[in-house]
């Protein structure tokens, strides 16, 4: 099998509505270059309400490359410019591994994964099709 996942399975918004002054964008499946634009649109949509705190939950991604880092860094930049707060949830996930290896854990506001139990072992890469939860 030589066809690789395209990552277009990045899922819908859980809790995408405003909860007080916090908006959370939860991303599922695979976040790579192919899925980047879709994910970026989701984040920008969430920014439109100028929430006090925007949380991007990457802990349920089954794969993430530098596209995901870029997504967060750009959102981080915009939040700082607008005086908003941006945080990420990483849990124990492929995203966490990438952010850690890039030295970003200390640089970002990282929230624990609380209300979102992981339904599968995060380290397990569940095959080439990706698995939206």
């Amino acid at each position, binding site marked *: 099998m030589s066809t690789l996942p395209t990552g277009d399975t990045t899922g819908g918004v859980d809790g995408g509505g405003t909860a007080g002054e916090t908006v959370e964008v939860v991303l599922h499946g695979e976040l790579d*270059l192919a899925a980047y634009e879709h994910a970026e649109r989701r984040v920008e949509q969430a920014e439109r309400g100028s929430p006090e705190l925007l949380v991007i939950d990457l802990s349920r991604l089954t794969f993430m490359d530098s596209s995901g880092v870029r997504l967060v860094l750009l959102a981080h930049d915009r939040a700082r410019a607008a005086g908003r707060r941006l945080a990420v949830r990483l849990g124990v996930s492929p995203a966490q591994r990438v952010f850690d290896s*890039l*030295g970003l854990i200390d640089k970002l506001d990282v929230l624990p994964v609380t209300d979102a139990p992981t339904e599968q072992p995060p380290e397990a890469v569940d095959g080439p099709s990706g698995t939206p939860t």
Partner: protein
Amino acid sequence: MRFEPTAVAELPFPVVITSGSNHVVTVVNASARRELPRLVAGRPMAETLADPDLLAALDRALHEGVEGAVDLVDPALTLGCVPSGDGVLVHGVPVGSRPAGARARGAALQGLTDTLLTEQDPAEIGRVAVTESMKLLGAEAGVLFLRTEPGVLTSLFSTWPADIRARYERVELHRGRPLSDAVLDGTPVWIEDAAGWAARYPEMAATGTAGSHEATACLPLRVDERDLGAIVFSFGTRRTFLPDERAYLQAVAALCAQALDRARLLVVERSARAVAERERDRMEFLARTGRLMEAPLSVEERLQRVADLVVPELADWCAVHLLRQGGGVIEQIAVAHDDPAKIDFVRRVQERYPPDPTAPGSAYEVTRTGEPAFFPEIPDELLVAGAEDAEHLELIRAIGMSSALVVPLTVRGRSVGALTLVHAESGQRFDELDLAFAQQIAATAAVALDNAGLYEQQRRIAHTLQSALLPTVLPDAPGLRLAARYRPQTADRSGVQVGGDLYDVVATPRPGRWAAVVADVCGKGPDAAALTALIRHTLRAEVAHGLDPVEALQRLNAAMLREERDPGRFATVAHAHVDVGDDGTATVSLAIAGHPPPLVRRRRMADPLAEARPRDGEGGEDGAGAEGGIGLDAAPTAEVEVVALSGTLLGVFTDVATPATTVRLGPGDMMVLYTDGVTEARGVDGFYGMQRLIHTVGAAGPGSADALAEALLADVVGFQDGVLRDDVALLVIEAAP
């Protein structure tokens, strides 16, 4: 404090600098440490060298701004005290030297140091060093030579009259002459009188003492072991060079050499920046041209857009011609110039004097032959030759062309038109690089004529750009074996884009030390490529400055932030200095910024009984099945270490961690630097991962850097069934056994 510690460190006489009213010792150079071992940096002078005369002289210098000299008994040394900023500069001279002269020299040296530390123009550095020293020593003339090529000195500044100066403009080094000996041996040559000439250079005595000259001093200019040139002073009479005068001149030479070296490095850094910017601009330009070819426009519209892009960035004029009507006629499809009146003017000229299709170098001729025409300069004779009559000549002179180039538009090997670029009122000249770049533009523009070739062209452009970012060959580094591999991401339907992996190895100013880098810029496209070029050229410049890897990465981060071109665009970098030992070893000083950890493969084999068997049983743990393929069948047989450093990615935060470590490579040991296209590679069995990487690097077989790089690339490519999701770059550094 106006003195830089580095500026006085190598002076051949004691220099101590104090600060504040307690005279806290802030700088002690090597000579002072030898001569005045009681001195302790960071402590007040009174606590370490409690000489009442010295303390009084320091007070006078600091509070009253008065210079003074103090004779110490133990050691026997005269110390001159000169006010300097918020402290005092204390310099040692041998007892018995002429005190007034010593003071004057101390003051002059201070002035000279200030000038040389800030001056960036080599000619001005030469002028100050030569003329100030001449005044102090009463020399009749002085020359500063730069070593411009091996074995040749060129005069940078000279006080000789023009006729003599011209004769010594360029001097070839020949052993057995005072100036040459000074340069070749790295030690000054002092000749005090005619007898000195006769004794040391009998054959040159007649020349050396011609025109009633007698004494001369030739001082080499060196920084570390590098030869920069020499300063020569000539005296009209015999002259004894006292020890403190010799020390003074050597100090001037040392300061001057450092200043010249700094000035040279500044030029290197500036030109590196200029090259990076030019490369970046051109990548963006080609990318814009490429995008234009995909726009929903007619062929004519696209070619007009290309011409509009070219002007005025690359040329004052641009024209595109195409073969029409089955190849029988050539038509001008597009023309661009900033001033529509000029376009009109040229059109009228062409209507009145239709261009001669057989004229060499015309768009017609270039289209017919498929060979470019290049006119770096357009002399008036060329216009005269091309003019039909006096009025035509006047008209084409009025266009004022200064430089021109015409390149063919080629589709599937067939020339179908030409792209013409002309410089006129800007007065600029095209060079060979412009010609090559115009051919790239023409190749991109030709896509407009051949949509079927679009994909192929994109691939070619990406390849061209990527190779501009990577060294064509690694340098020949004695004592090391180097091997690198680069494989771009496999093209998918979005086309091939130039990407952001980079490797480079360059020599450093220190002999036997090499600088290596592997970097990964996130993303693809012209912005990523521009950042890749910036990283390569900035690091090259920092390496030329002699910065260590940590400093270089910090400066690179600052440079990336200054660019502020593209927020969120970041890079990870591994940067190392490799010092070759004389016993087949090498020492790697490595700094990491958010980059995957390098591996070290030791030549020493792991014990096959102790290591190999248990490993067989662990095969499944790295996520790759036992049948996963290449490399896993063989048990690891070499010891492999992971250099566990991580640090912060560059280009986003002002404050980044760039941790460093030192790794010793024994003979045959290899360090493997790579990008995450290796570890993040995905195949049917999941991620390639660190375990498989360690396994492959340690596998038996590859006994050289090249073999290891080849085996590793093959394994990574094979693991993904030949379809690469990301670029892969590898650099293997081996201490040559």
